[in-house]
């Protein structure tokens, strides 16, 4: 495959940055998108140029480290992570525009790498979960209906990649935060800190400078893990009831 890549290059956080066009040839349709980026970077390295910086880690679609806003979509045209996106999705001769996630709370570090530390701080704000220690618990000692366990698990599949923020017209982190709040709100183990967790995580989310939700559903449509908008409704319920009932005046 022969492609034209239009890539956002930015030296550092304070650099203005801009698009640079790179022609690339000899790309196999079986390559993943990141492997295509590796080929480009090898060529750049041979030429003595600075390779394009981008985030990646497991390349198995489970770590949430890869990002990239490809042709107007987070993680590209398919509902998957960038590492699981294959070059057969594109056609020969196509121009592919690659940008970093755009949000005030995700400042660009270099090129396509953004600092998603704001997500970590939202998680940290949630605090700890009380669990009983001691001997190995018996199986099924903690009763939980299968449906609830499944729903909590669905929420827990959020890998925190930030595609929801990237897709949202308001750069809102509500799908992410709601998935994290939902996961523990539904499990019996998370009940002691349930109210304070909802209050603190929402407060941290606002402090980081994310926008609010307009219920457009763009996040849900782009989420590589299929996190549903029902999580946002649940977060709102959790937050309202926590505000009304918690002891935090």
């Amino acid at each position: 495959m022969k492609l034209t890549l239009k890539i956002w290059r930015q030296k550092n956080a304070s650099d203005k940055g801009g698009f640079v066009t790179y022609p690339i040839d000899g790309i196999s349709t079986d390559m993943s998108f990141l492997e295509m980026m590796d080929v480009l970077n090898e060529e750049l390295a041979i030429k003595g140029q600075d390779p394009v910086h981008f985030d990646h880690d497991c390349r198995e679609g489970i770590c949430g480290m890869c990002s990239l806003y490809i042709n107007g979509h987070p993680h590209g045209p398919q509902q998957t992570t960038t590492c699981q996106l294959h070059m057969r999705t594109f056609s020969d001769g196509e121009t592919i525009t690659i940008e970093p996630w755009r949000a005030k709370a995700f400042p660009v570090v270099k090129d396509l790498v953004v600092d998603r530390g704001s997500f970590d701080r939202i998680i940290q704000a949630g605090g700890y979960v009380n669990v009983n220690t001691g001997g190995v618990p018996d199986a099924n000692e903690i009763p939980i209906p299968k449906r609830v366990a499944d729903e909590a698990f669905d929420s827990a599949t959020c890998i925190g990649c930030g595609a929801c923020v990237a897709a949202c017209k308001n750069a809102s982190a509500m799908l992410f935060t709601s998935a994290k709040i939902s996961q523990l709100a539904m499990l019996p183990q998370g009940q002691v800190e349930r109210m304070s967790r909802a209050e603190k995580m929402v407060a941290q989310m606002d402090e980081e400078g994310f926008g609010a939700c307009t219920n457009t559903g763009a996040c849900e449509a782009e989420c590589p893990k299929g996190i549903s908008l029902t999580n946002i409704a649940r977060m709102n319920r959790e937050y309202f009831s926590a505000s009304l009932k918690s002891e935090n005046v």
Partner: protein
Amino acid sequence: MSWVTKTLSSTIGRKLIMALTGLFLILFLTGHVAGNLQLFKSDGGEAFNIYAHFMTTNPAVKLLSYLTYISIIGHVIFSIWLGSTNRAARPIGYGVSTPPSTTLSSRNMGILGTFILIFIVIHMQTFWYQMHWGDVPFVTYDGVEYKDLFSIVAFAFQNELMVIGYVIAMAFLGFHLSHGFASAFQTLGLNHAKYSPAIALIGKIYCIVVPILFASMPVYIYFTQS
């Protein structure tokens, strides 16, 4: 900051205000459209004028009208506040923006709302202001004097531009409601496998039926009162 102001100034709290004021305005629209259906009566505006008199003098209706004014102002102020937060959340935009898999209405609620607000100002200036402080002629039904608001309505809708403007404004209202109705319930956290499909369906019917009923009023008056 007390817990109340802290909650209501959070992004979710501000959305709560948007949802509650929005739902109250939907209730208001339901009452408004139902009452105004009396414009279709072929009685020279008698039923409508008696209704208008009741609506401007009854203390319970007065209270509701104040709630409506507060809801409109609150809805506008909180949308501006949320909008500025939302814009600030993405200081640098994307180079490429493909049409997302979301509805046009949901992405442009602010623009639709701005047009509706302009409409409300013109609408209130034309009828509400006239009814309260304007020079409205009187009519007598069964020995009781009433303000003849119907004559004001009939006169206003002789103007084609006015009729067209009203129909367009109602289209904007329809699109605003097509997202707003169900969205308000989602914001309140009322998302449930049993009820959400029903809410979505009622929202779709509401956003079509109510604006069409409203829009048909100036059109009907234009063709019957000339």
